[in-house]
């Protein structure tokens, strides 16, 4: 346990020292504030609740940015340390191998969570300062978008470790990480839509379509935030997608956790067997 925390602490300190944390926080805060301020200008006039608009904007931002940041943090974690020779030294210490991956995960997750909470939180603070008209349910949605963004980040951290454990070279890991990002963030939904159009809505059953949505962590995240809450669906363009998908927020949360636990477990299992 001590080793786990020591490694997590080392990652956090490293993230702080090499300015990763500050850069990520500023990046997320910058985007979040831009979306909030630009988003509230047109909607304010028609009296729409701008907190919900912010939540929708932030969740779209998350889908593009958080997986990318998480993969950048994690793709190097195992293979990079092997290539630099630092893993050899680390594993010569009295610790179990899962401590090494678990510690890194905890450290990276803390860094990512800090950047997300502070970055997105700053957007929330600006809205409060502007005297936004929002009820508790809206604030709950806002908290949920931050929380689930951290979960999405955790899922892509775990996927990154899995990539990092499988490959034999660092450059391969970088390539696969980019491919995974493109697939899950850009290509997947387009392919899914294309499939629906080509199919004419006949061949693919609802259950198959729903299963395909859950097979992508970013879609699970999108469903959780955009369709999971009452009043949200009316603002979003994904109603067409989510109307068919009947998932409870709890089950979507379960899927998000699954996307963390399965890749992380697999990465740890492979790492235990890896010959360094």
């Amino acid at each position, binding site marked *: 346990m*001590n*080793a786990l925390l*020591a*490694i997590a*602490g*080392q990652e956090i*300190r*490293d993230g702080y*020292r*090499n300015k990763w944390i500050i850069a990520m926080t500023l990046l997320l805060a910058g985007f979040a504030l831009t979306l909030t301020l630009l988003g509230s200008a047109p909607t304010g006039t028609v009296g729409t609740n701008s907190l919900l608009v912010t939540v929708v904007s932030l969740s779209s931002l998350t889908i593009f940015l958080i997986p990318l940041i998480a993969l950048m943090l994690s793709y190097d974690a195992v293979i990079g340390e092997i290539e*630099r*020779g*630092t893993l*050899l*030294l*680390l*594993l*010569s*210490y*009295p*610790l*179990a191998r899962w401590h090494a991956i678990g510690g890194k995960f905890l450290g990276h997750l803390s860094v990512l969570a800090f950047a997300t909470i502070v970055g997105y939180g700053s957007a929330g603070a600006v809205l409060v300062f502007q005297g936004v008209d929002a009820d508790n349910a809206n604030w709950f949605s806002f908290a949920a978008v931050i929380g689930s963004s951290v979960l999405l980040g955790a899922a892509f951290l775990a996927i990154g470790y899995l990539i990092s454990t499988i490959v034999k070279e660092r450059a391969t890991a970088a390539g696969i990480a980019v491919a995974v990002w493109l697939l899950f963030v850009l290509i997947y939904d387009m392919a899914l839509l294309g499939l629906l159009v080509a199919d004419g809505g006949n061949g693919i059953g609802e259950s198959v379509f729903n299963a395909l949505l859950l097979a992508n962590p970013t879609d699970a995240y999108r469903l959780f935030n955009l369709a999971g809450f009452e009043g949200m669906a009316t603002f979003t363009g994904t109603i067409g997608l989510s109307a068919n998908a009947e998932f409870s927020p709890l089950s979507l949360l379960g899927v998000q956790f699954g996307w963390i636990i399965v890749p992380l477990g697999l990465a740890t299992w492979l790492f235990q067997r890896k*010959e*360094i």
Partner: protein
Amino acid sequence: MSASNLELDNTAKAYDGLKVLHDVSFAVSPGEVVALVGHNGAGKTTIMKLLLGLIRPTSGSVQVLGHDPAGSNAAQARLGMGFLPETVSFPANMTGREIMNFYARLKRQDRSDNDRLLETVGLADASDRRVKTYSKGMRQRLGLAQALIGSPRVLLLDEPTTGLDPTLRRSFYDTIMSLKDEGVTVLLASHALSEMESRVDRIAIMSKGRLMADGSMTDLRKKAQLPARIRLTTDDGAAGRAAEHLQGADIRHVNGRTVEFDCASENKMELVRRVTDIGVTIEDMEIELPNLDRIYELYQDSGEASS
């Protein structure tokens, strides 16, 4: 229970069917300093990794401090071990002290001893600077300092003196010798043959994954049966006459005053006596016993031949 701190028993290792280590057996006792020498890829690092439990032997067994280093008590064995990898690198943005604190925590040691260790390796003044400002030699010394955390009973050092200047090398060996006196087992893998031969108790020569020889310098000399090289300086013009009377020696070089020849170590006094018997005055004599470089080359060559 064996009396040795580390032991390989008929240990072999293969990667995807390719054998990198062939049934190696050797043991090192407490207070013994052993050099592991061999060309790149001879199996030195494989042995280190086996002793650290990072890889498992394909056959045979490995024991460190009475435990299987890849078994369930591995953490116990590693608490008593220190390791310096061949290429040592640390997070560039940490200070030397922070790195020592991190490793001390992993080894469940109090950080209070770190100052003394940094002092030992001569990094006390640089301990609060970031590692990225360190020279190669300073990083190497920081690597040594982390290996010494927690007073290990077994030290595995892979190329410990690369990047160290002669003064630092001497102080490195001084440190090793004082650890030896405390009963620490030290295994050094290195290419720096000449600096090790006078300082280690035993030398294990590896070639192509095989242990070619294992013994003290005297043992190896005897076993290798390499000739001693002798250079005689005579009075003017007598060298040619001396050379004629050196039957059985391998004359390598003669000119006016000096004659250089190789001969079996036990014959050297007899040959020198023969030269003085014919009335040649010997003004100077140099004897060069076969050094580790030559013994090493011999075993490398026989390693080539056997594979």
